[in-house]
């Protein structure tokens, strides 16, 4: 039981996830099509309807497509986090989760490795999305493409941990539709991904408050600032704390004596 064991196991888990992602071409394409439709269709339609003031990190007037790009990056990671959680529920139902859980390593480490693997996949998707956006004239400073990487790691971990937490509570695959309605959609629409806080405040102060405390908003803002080479400390800390809370709860959820696994019963 040495460090090398941890290292090999972690890369084994990450490698498997990446390989699965590469071989499942439909998953790769659908993961890209979703944000691209929003960018090419939704944003183009909304461009005229929504006027944007100059707010940090932007230093000039921007097109709506430019504004929602960080939100769509967040969307990729949000869906990916939920997709990972869906695959955990599927793996648990199908049994392959057991192979991971019976290996001689601490459960928190296995879950964290699984999370890192999912985050790695989401980062690949984000960079491909950014590459396509470049040809659609959405350009950020070149440093931004580097600065965004640590931000993506943190936001990917936070959203993945949320997915992990949900997967520990979901008993069956069929219940996953509820997650879409009660988690993904409210989280996405009640955030700064599509419209800035001040704009939301104009129509509802209450909604803007909710959006402000939504961890997804904070992750999007962290990504937005990083893409323009700036560090948003508050968003970063908020995302970090949300990650720690979700992860700790997920570890409890997967604990054989305390968590939900026991209550699910068996043969």
């Amino acid at each position, binding site marked *: 039981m040495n460090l*090398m064991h941890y290292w090999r*196991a972690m890369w084994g888990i990450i*490698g498997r996830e990446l390989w699965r992602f590469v071989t499942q071409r439909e998953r790769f394409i659908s993961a890209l099509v979703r944000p691209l439709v929003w960018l090419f269709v939704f944003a183009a339609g909304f461009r005229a309807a929504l006027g944007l003031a100059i707010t940090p990190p932007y230093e000039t007037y921007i097109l709506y497509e430019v504004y929602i790009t960080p939100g769509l990056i967040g969307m990729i990671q949000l869906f990916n986090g939920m997709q990972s959680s869906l695959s955990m529920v599927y793996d648990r139902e*199908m*049994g392959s989760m*057991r192979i991971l859980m019976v290996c*001689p390593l601490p459960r928190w480490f296995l879950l964290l490795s699984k999370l890192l693997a999912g985050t790695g996949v989401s980062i690949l998707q984000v960079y491909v999305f950014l590459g396509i956006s470049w040809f659609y004239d959405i350009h950020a400073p070149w440093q931004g493409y580097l600065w965004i990487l640590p931000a993506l790691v943190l936001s990917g971990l936070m959203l993945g941990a949320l997915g992990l937490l949900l997967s520990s509570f979901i008993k069956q695959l069929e219940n996953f539709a509820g997650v879409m309605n009660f988690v993904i959609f409210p989280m996405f629409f009640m955030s700064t991904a599509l419209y800035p806080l001040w704009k939301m405040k104009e129509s509802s102060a209450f909604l803007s408050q909710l959006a402000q405390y939504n961890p997804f908003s904070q992750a999007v803002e962290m990504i937005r600032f990083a893409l323009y080479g700036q560090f948003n400390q508050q968003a970063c800390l908020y995302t970090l704390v949300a990650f720690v809370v979700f992860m700790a709860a997920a570890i409890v959820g997967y604990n*054989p004596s305390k968590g939900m696994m026991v209550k699910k019963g*068996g043969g």
Partner: protein
Amino acid sequence: MKTLPALAIENLSFSYGGKKALDQLNFSINAGECTVLLGPNGAGKSTLFSLITHLYDSHEGRIQLCGFDIKQQTRLALSKLGVVFQQTTLDMDLSVLQNLYYHTALHGLSRQQANVRIQQELERLNMYERRFEKIRQLNGGHRRRVEIARALLHKPSVLLLDEPTVGLDVPSRLAIVEYVHQLAEEEKLAVLWASHLIDEIYPEDHLIVLHKGQIKAKGTVNDVLDASQSTQIKDAFYSLTQGEQA
């Protein structure tokens, strides 16, 4: 000097909510022994396997693998364990080799060690030449062989098999039964095989008859026959489980 049993279960009980699934189980398996766990559906076989593999945790009783307590020394205990679950746990879209590499990584083996072990185990099961094929392309019997090979890659001392022959045709079933018995004898593996197929039992096997969470009989085949005053295992099983279907 007395050697420790490879698997020891002491006073093990487990409940789902208020419903008792296992009640005061006691048994042990030594190296080189093949023990068949017989029980009808709902007897508690899968629950017992989930406890031995630490997927569930019991507050009552004790499980030790080669002397390591599953609750206190979880990682050491699990490193001694190889498992073939009832459902296929292979990744269908990955090749045989990729599935096995994944397992060796989880057990901390280097790529060099992994290559040697994978070749050894697959060759023993006549599967080495099929290592690049995707699992999806293999039939049920071959998938099971891959799972058995995988369970042995990290050289465990205890092998758990949860109804591994369900859904297989007769030749595949017999081949697997024969192979596992051979492993127990030659590799000195302690095998716990959950089954409800009586023809999978060899005369030299040990038996545990589990019914409604309780052990109704245990020992060699002859011990169980004597305890139930039967001449055939089938009759012994029916009388011990009050006629329930295996």
